[in-house]
């Protein structure tokens, strides 16, 4: 009788082989499946109003549609709303496209639009951040609806391009919503497991079925992992790559490099409610002049960034280079520092620049460079690295004791100027810089109420932006250029400035 003891060893081996056999799923991708590697994770909750996570906003257009759509040139296009007109400063009337089916087969009517917009705009739901306030919907008939805002909002149309139209039954019971979304988009939700979102083609999509049979969004945390998966063909598109990886992409014949500036901008925010920056714009501008933004873009980021010379980015309505945006000028910085009451940095308390590692690429690198720039003119400052969770928790605090400046990115995935200006610089909620200056609030309100687009643009460029830049609550470091590696068999894939995925026209050539 073979003695018992060796059975322990063989038992472990047996379990191991057995389990391997069971789990052998063929990993070669069928031709019609497009796999995309994304850099940030997806939230498991499919109710679009319950989060403001950038990656979700980028992915939602594949299974949801919107009333209006922003095309590649940044102009508004009809989508579920065939036409619209402005009846009075508070109401807009929309004509709804007919014979559009939801994924569960029910027809799209103005009742769905009413419930979706009202649900999204209620202060209870996070998505209200994208809207200028509570919106009421009045149904005129099955395919016309009037949306009434509580105050005149020129930015309504652009904001509506970010609010997906969902089925009214889903809106009424959020539990069902959290499990599976029911939209009218080109693809249908299949399942979400192991950090991967599986979608399949929606055959009766109103613009005709998409060319791809299946789409997969897989969260891959590490940039080198993403790139190598594209090179071995396990995924077809990998986003958010590093400029150092460009030589590898270019040396590989079957992978194409896509370079597109996107609406994301990296900012250096001053905590304007905390000393020494409190009520001291000169000090903040002194810091701004001391930072070699050109150097960061040229040496550290090079392919991954474009110089930013305004609070907005090209492609956003109302963009124009700001005349008084400070550039790298050490003498002026020293001069302003003295004017601000801290000649050569004497009297300044030890400051801390907070940077999150793993959220935005190379944040730590240019964080260290900025710290050295500031130290060069005598400012006592150190870098304070945190992980993403901690940054998220303390980046809005008005008087945090852990840091005084922070580097955080802002990507509203929309082209409406107020998603930048109002969201970042209005005193309430006063997000990252907690700036609270009546003059800025007035110019922002002024700009919001102008319905005539040309006049609004003129006010934004000549009044709003220059005043904000004078107060310098935050210094835009650079505009991110998204580097994507796309396999050459993927055809018709284009990267929108709003970083949203429009996969309807994409197909796989064999």
């Amino acid at each position, binding site marked *: 009788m073979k003695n018992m003891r060796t059975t322990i060893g063989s038992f472990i081996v047996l379990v191991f082989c057995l389990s391997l056999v069971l789990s052998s799923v063929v990993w070669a991708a069928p031709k019609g499946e497009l796999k995309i590697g994304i850099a940030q994770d997806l939230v498991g909750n499919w109710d679009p109003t319950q989060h403001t996570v950038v990656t979700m906003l980028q992915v939602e257009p594949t299974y949801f549609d919107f009333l209006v759509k922003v095309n590649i040139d940044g102009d508004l296009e009809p989508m579920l709303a065939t036409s619209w007109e402005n009846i009075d400063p508070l109401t807009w009337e929309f004509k709804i496209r007919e014979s559009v089916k939801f994924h569960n087969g029910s027809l799209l009517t103005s009742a769905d639009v009413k419930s979706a917009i009202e649900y999204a705009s209620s202060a209870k739901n996070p998505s209200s951040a994208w809207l200028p306030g509570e919106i009421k919907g009045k149904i005129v008939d099955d395919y016309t609806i009037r949306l009434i805002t509580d105050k005149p909002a020129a930015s309504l149309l652009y904001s509506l391009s970010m609010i997906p139209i969902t089925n009214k039954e889903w809106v009424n019971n959020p539990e069902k919503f959290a499990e599976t979304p029911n939209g009218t988009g080109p693809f249908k939700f299949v399942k979400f497991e192991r950090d991967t979102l599986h979608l399949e083609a929606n055959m009766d999509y109103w613009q005709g079925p998409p060319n791809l049979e299946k789409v997969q969004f897989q969260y891959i945390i590490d940039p*080198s992992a993403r790139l190598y998966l594209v090179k071995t063909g396990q995924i077809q598109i990998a986003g958010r790559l590093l400029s*150092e*990886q460009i*030589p590898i992409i270019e040396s590989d014949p079957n992978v194409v490099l896509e370079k597109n500036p996107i609406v994301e901008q990296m900012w250096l925010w001053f905590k304007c409610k905390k000393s020494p920056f409190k009520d001291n714009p000169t000090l903040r501008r002194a810091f701004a002049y001391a930072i070699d933004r050109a150097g960061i873009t040229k040496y550290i980021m090079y392919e991954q960034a474009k110089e930013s010379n305004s609070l907005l980015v090209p492609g956003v309505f109302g963009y124009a280079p700001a005349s008084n945006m400070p550039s790298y000028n050490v003498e002026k910085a020293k001069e302003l520092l003295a004017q601000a009451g801290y000649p050569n940095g004497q009297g300044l308390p030890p400051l801390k620049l907070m940077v999150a590692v793993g959220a935005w690429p190379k944040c730590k*690198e240019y964080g*260290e460079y900025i710290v050295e720039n500031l130290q060069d003119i005598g400012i006592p400052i150190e870098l304070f690295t*945190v992980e993403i969770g901690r940054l998220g928790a303390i980046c809005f605090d008005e008087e945090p004791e852990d840091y005084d400046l922070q580097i955080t990115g802002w990507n509203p995935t929309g082209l409406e100027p107020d998603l930048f200006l109002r969201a970042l610089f209005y005193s309430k909620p006063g997000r990252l810089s907690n700036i609270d200056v009546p003059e800025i609030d007035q110019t922002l309100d002024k700009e919001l109420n102008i319905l005539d687009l040309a006049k609004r643009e003129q006010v934004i460029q000549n009044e709003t932006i220059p005043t904000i830049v004078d107060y310098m609550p935050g210094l835009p470091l650079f505009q991110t250029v998204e580097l994507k590696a796309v396999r050459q068999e993927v055809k018709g894939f284009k990267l929108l400035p709003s970083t949203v995925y429009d996969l309807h026209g994409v197909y796989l050539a064999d």
Partner: protein
Amino acid sequence: MNLDTNIDNNTLLKKDNINFKGKLSRWYRFLLTNKGIFFGSLITFIVIFCVVFAPLVTTYDPLKQDITKRLTPPMWQDGGSIEHILGTDSMGRDLLTRIIYGGRFSLLLGLTSVLIALMVGTLFGLITGYYGGFLENILMRIVDIQLGFPFIILVVIILSIAEPTFWVLSALFSLLLWPGYARVVRSILLSEKSAAYVLAAKSLGASDFRIIIIYIARNIIPSMLLMSTMDIATIIITEAMLGFVGLGTPPPAPTWGNIMADGKNYISTAWWVITFPGVAIWITLFGINLFGDNLQQFVNPKLRKKY
């Protein structure tokens, strides 16, 4: 009847072939003749010398950035320059200098954490192994509790609460390592406890304390030596892992760990940033292990060659 054994003692002493000059000479002769120990200690000495007297070895300031010279390759590759022998890192700082200054932190961190873990673990192990019974259960359950906690969760929480200074990190790492020592010491105790020499010592009236410390401790030293040299590597590499998540030592202070973490993304274009700290670790460990391995022979008579 007197038993005058006719073996007179001085004849034994006179014999020149049995060396009774004293214990020290035996150590001295062994250390010199054994090649492993000699080379091991030589390498370790060189590493420690470079790390401690860093300012003498390199003139650069490890924190001085020079953006224009970013990621220059090592000297012998095209584009490399004599100024930066091993090239520069992603911020244009000289890699060799950072590795040497980084060595200070990493080695010190490794040594202190291992020592703390060794002491705490061995203490726990000795007590639980020798006494057993109720005390053993309690202490071993503390070990279970400690092992039960997933390390990554513990680290992120603690490093978000406490500032990642040197002492916090070394406390954290000894927290990670001490249960290992406790368990190994306990398993050795279990088998040694019933050994004849322990019973003999007890019968001669030796106190428990004396038995544990003098008799059984000697058997623990070889495996402790083996484990501690390995754990130093684990610590240095785990510290690098923290660098990924932004939890390690605050930049710009260099440690072998965070130099490697920075270099990870540039692995295919700037291979040297991540490779040379790895080589530095390898050299240090090779020295320590060579030294430890052969010293083990001296300490553990079983391993020592007969005759």
